[in-house]
């Protein structure tokens, strides 16, 4: 264990490759009093369902949960934008004492009348069960009355971790799956899961598959539509990105509809190419395979020379990576390697034991690996390992920059596409602009009067 004061109860969640030899503990509830970078069950559900753009997302609870998640993700829609609005039952003291089922009903009715959504997701927050509201019953009643699916999402914040929120979201989506039939069943068809169309990434990825001759039935949930989700059980394969968020749904669909799934990542050249080849291999179709080869060759060839230029300037720099899902960390480590950067700190909020085994394998000796970390650990390790760059989300940004460590946003709020081949170039450009900016020299050098 490195010599900084890690909270005792967290010592098995912090690991240094080459020095430590234990299994990293994970999927634990966050420790009280630690400033975890994680959110809660509600957050897990909200981020997964958020991009479904033709449904209303009604948060049943006091105002905070809805207010803090208003327009929080960079998920784009090619049509309706209901997901970018924030709806809350805004519970007050009276509601807490007397219950708020009536208010919930009225809220759903008002929203349905005003926005004519194709479905409604009703998120139960912390206190809903405690005040005795039967959200399931209200949703059943409103489904009948409004003739649209009104789906409860059991996302009480304290009932587990963010992963449990993913699960609740998957269960909610699964209620829609199989409730409509497509006009024709395409044999060469897939669903893309765990892709949220940040900065239009789902559109880029969809285009790749379409160029390969594959039909994309539904993207879960980027640029998502209720009707596509309903018909998604007729796809031949589920292509699942992102560690935890949608694997649950893929498993449920496999069990009920026999749809097989593969796990992929669309970050970095290697992983993006693998994600395309894996699908091509699955369909065992020569034409598809040839098209895939041509596509990969063209795309990689298009960006590789530029990447090498970046690499020349970035070679030898060090990065810290702390992200929500561990799968993203794997891809980032590889993508950074392509541009000459070594990862010295890697971690995730929601990794599983298997994820951490993979991380250990991917990382170099001396790399620190953390689960559910906090600002104290992250900043101290970044300094100790002399990171030039931190990749994470909004909460890590000021922490890193305060110390003169450049920052690249790789969270769900970003506005720059980082997926696929185009994304790799954007990523390299971002990293380059961050690491080579002259501003950091003022952080490191002493002021003239010091």
């Amino acid at each position, binding site marked *: 264990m490195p010599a900084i004061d890690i909270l005792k109860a967290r010592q098995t969640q912090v690991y240094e490759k080459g020095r430590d030899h234990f299994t990293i503990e994970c999927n634990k509830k966050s420790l009280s009093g630690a400033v975890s970078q994680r959110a*809660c069950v509600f957050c897990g559900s909200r981020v997964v369902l958020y991009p479904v753009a033709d449904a209303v997302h009604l948060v049943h609870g006091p105002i*905070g*949960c809805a207010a*803090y998640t208003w327009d929080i993700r960079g998920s784009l829609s090619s049509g309706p934008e209901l997901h970018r609005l924030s709806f809350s039952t805004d519970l007050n003291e009276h509601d807490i004492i007397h219950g708020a089922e009536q*208010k919930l009903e009225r809220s759903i009715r008002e929203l349905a009348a005003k926005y004519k959504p194709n479905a409604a997701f009703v998120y139960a927050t912390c*206190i809903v069960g*405690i005040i005795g509201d039967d959200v399931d019953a209200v949703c059943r009643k409103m489904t009948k009355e409004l003739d649209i699916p009104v789906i409860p999402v059991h996302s009480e914040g304290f009932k587990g971790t963010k992963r449990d929120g993913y699960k609740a979201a998957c269960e909610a989506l699964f209620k829609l799956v199989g409730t409509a039939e497509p006009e024709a069943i395409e044999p060469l068809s897939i669903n893309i899961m765990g892709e949220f169309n940040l900065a239009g990434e789902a559109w880029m990825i969809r285009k790749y598959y379409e160029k390969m001759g594959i039909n994309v039935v539904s993207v879960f949930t980027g640029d998502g539509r209720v009707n596509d989700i309903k018909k998604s059980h007729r796809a031949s394969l589920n292509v699942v990105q992102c560690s935890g968020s949608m694997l649950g749904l893929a498993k449920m669909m496999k069990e009920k509809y026999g749809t097989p799934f593969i796990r992929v990542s669309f970050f970095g050249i290697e992983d993006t190419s693998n994600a395309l080849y894996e699908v091509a291999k699955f369909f065992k179709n020569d034409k598809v395979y040839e098209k895939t080869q041509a596509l990969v060759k063209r795309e990689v060839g298009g960006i590789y020379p530029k990447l090498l230029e970046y690499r020349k300037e970035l070679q030898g720099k060090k990065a810290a990576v702390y992200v929500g899902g561990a799968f993203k960390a794997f891809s980032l480590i590889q993508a950074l390697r392509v541009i000459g950067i070594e990862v010295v700190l890697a971690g995730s909020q929601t990794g599983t034991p298997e994820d951490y085994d993979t991380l250990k394998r991917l990382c170099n000796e001396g790399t620190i690996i953390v689960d559910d970390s906090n600002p104290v650990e992250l900043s101290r390790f970044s300094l100790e390992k002399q990171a030039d760059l931190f990749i994470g989300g909004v909460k890590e940004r000021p922490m890193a920059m305060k110390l003169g460590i450049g920052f690249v946003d790789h969270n769900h709020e970003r506005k720059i596409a980082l997926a696929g081949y185009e994304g790799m170039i954007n990523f390299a450009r971002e990293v380059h602009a961050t690491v080579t900016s002259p501003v950091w020299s003022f952080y490191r050098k002493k002021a003239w009067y010091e």
Partner: protein
Amino acid sequence: MSKAVTQNSCSYCTPLGASLAFKGIENTITMLHGSQGCATYMRRFLISHFREPIDIASSSFTEETAIFGGGQNLHLGLDNLSSQYEPELIAVASTCLSETIGDDLNMHISEYKKKKAGQPIPEIIAVSTPSYKGSHIEGFYIAVTELVKHFSEGKSSPTGPVNLFPGMVSCEDLRYLKSVLHAFNVPYIMVPDYSETLEGGNWKNHHPIPPGGTPVRALARTGIARGSIEFGQVIDKKQSAATYLAEKRGVPAAMIPIPIGIHCSDIFFKTLEEISGTSLPTEFRQTRGRLVDAYGDAHKYVFGKRAIIYGEDDFVLSIASFLLEIGMQLAVCGGSGRGVGFKDKLVDLVQANDGEMPIIYEGSDFKEVELAAMQKGGDIFVGNSKGYKISRSFDIPLVRIGFPIHDRVGGQRIHHLGYKGTLYLLDLITNEIIRTKQSLSSVAYSYI
């Protein structure tokens, strides 16, 4: 029947305001007693405005905690915070969850103190901030009031310091207020002061708690102050630190408007003269003169322009007063809270200025602001950056001031207060109106 659903809320929950206020106390760390998500969401929300590291801990409730109570979690959290942050003060704010299950924070804390008897532990303070009661601004006031309740000692003395309770203003405003008090040459205690903790310089080493803030030991002396100044005309008396000190410690209280515009700033400086015994220093006379002169320079551009304003109640009141002073009209006023007498005060203000009666909302959301704006029309939005989408959809410019500013840099540095802050706001608003006029004109005028 009134609407049931809130759409695009203008207000945030009570613990957010409390967390912000506690950031202004030196060497203090805040813990929210509830689910992990509350702390993380509020950190993210505040960080997006201040662009500074903001640590807020959580007692991380589990299902067992929700059933058996949060005592054990709270104790563990206090232990962990003490060892990782070595704070002087731990401020614990409740949440909707802990309040709904009836968790008694003060009982848990006194048990903790008993358990730790004889050992050095930080000061601990608890505030009740259930998110279903009030909004972020109330949480802010509650936190400040609890601080003086907990720490103030003694009785008012004519030689004591001046207390200043500025409410939720920007880091730049706080720095400005300190320089004003300095210029009046009067000892003061400003609660809270997050001007350094939320807008500090670069660091060589990691600081678990950023330097700066009102010293905890200074809070005791709020009780012996010669007087208190609190910005706020519609604060609930129970949430007013100045009122508490007046009642319990005999400290005379001046509850005055947030000093924006000439009228409201005059009240502030007059109050300062009285309380300090120092007559208005020359620099402020000069700035006031420049401001009057600038009103003259700007009046043609802004006259009759109609504004849609929104934000915390007291902020809206002062902005409204300022805009009326320069000859603008109010089309819509959306107050995010339910301040005592907010609507009446606004109506009085408009009538006193013979102005157009705006649509006034209490506890409003952005849907209401949007509908009202559609009905009344307007030339300019004045408020925080959450109004951007409406301003864009109507193609009416937005001048971003207040909190939160999430889509521009520098929100923490906007100077709103005093003659000097008003000068800055005047330039901002006037130039935005000029910019709009230029961009709508077919001629590229280079003199306006």
